[in-house]
């Protein structure tokens, strides 16, 4: 079983789909968190723990959304794939290794989809655990926005590195979204 799982984790198709969901939903999570912490700062929240609690709520929502939606999307996609193969083979593939692999691949896709926003939200929230000692709310917000932007940069750099782009340019393009969200929030917040 674990050998089969390891083999699926090495499968290019499973990896590519998981990577897309992870980065796409991680991008959503990081931007949501940047908006959330700036909003909290501008509305005068003074306790770091309050920001963390709100952020964890957002993380639970986006992680659930990531897992649930992909679980359902991939159920349909993989059933359609299985149906096409069954039509070509003129046989029922229910209960075979092909069906088991599709179910396991769907689980991997859904887990990656949920992990993206979890990382994108939880990591930028960490500075708020240090509010009062040693960080102020202003510094915690700045460090948090920096971490969120850093996560976006790393997503972009990673995607750039696997597609023969200049990784730092791809990273900067993604990080720019974090700066833009921060700027729009400051401007209209």
């Amino acid at each position, binding site marked *: 079983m674990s050998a089969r799982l390891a083999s699926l984790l090495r499968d290019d198709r499973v990896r590519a789909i998981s990577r897309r969901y992870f980065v796409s939903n991680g991008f959503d999570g990081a931007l949501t968190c940047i908006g959330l912490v700036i909003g909290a700062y501008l509305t005068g929240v003074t306790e770091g723990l309050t920001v963390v609690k709100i952020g964890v709520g957002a993380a639970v929502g986006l992680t659930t959304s990531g897992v649930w939606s992909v679980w359902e999307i991939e159920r349909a996609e993989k059933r359609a794939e299985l149906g*096409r*193969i069954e039509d070509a083979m003129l046989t029922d*593939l229910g209960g*075979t290794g092909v069906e088991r692999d599709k179910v396991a691949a769907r689980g991997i896709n859904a887990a990656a989809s949920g992990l993206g926003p979890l990382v994108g939200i939880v990591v930028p929230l960490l500075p708020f655990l240090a509010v009062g000692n040693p960080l102020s709310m202003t510094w915690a917000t700045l460090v948090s926005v920096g971490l969120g932007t850093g996560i976006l940069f790393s997503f972009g750099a990673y995607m750039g590195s696997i597609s023969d782009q200049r990784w730092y340019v791809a990273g900067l393009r993604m990080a720019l979204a974090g700066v833009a969200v921060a700027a729009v929030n400051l401007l209209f917040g």
Partner: protein
Amino acid sequence: MAPIRRLVLDVLKPHSPSTVEVAREVADAAGVAGVNATLLETDREVQNLRLVVEGEAVDADEVERRVRDLGGTVHSVDEVVAGEELVAYRNQPQDPSPS
């Protein structure tokens, strides 16, 4: 009953699992000493393999079960060699002569 020494199967399978995986999985069956999996034809969704299975006492049912579990179907059993000796096929007078 006389043991099966050699089994040649015509198998249709999806692209995944790969031919390597099919060969290894079948080679793990009871009584199998070695497997040769040859790709005969590839289509958009499926592949056609010739599977040559040899061993001291090949369990044909288990080989077929393993092929099915991998999502393949055995289209035909093209050759079976059974008994104490591995009998090779010899050209018969009715076989078409090579041109």
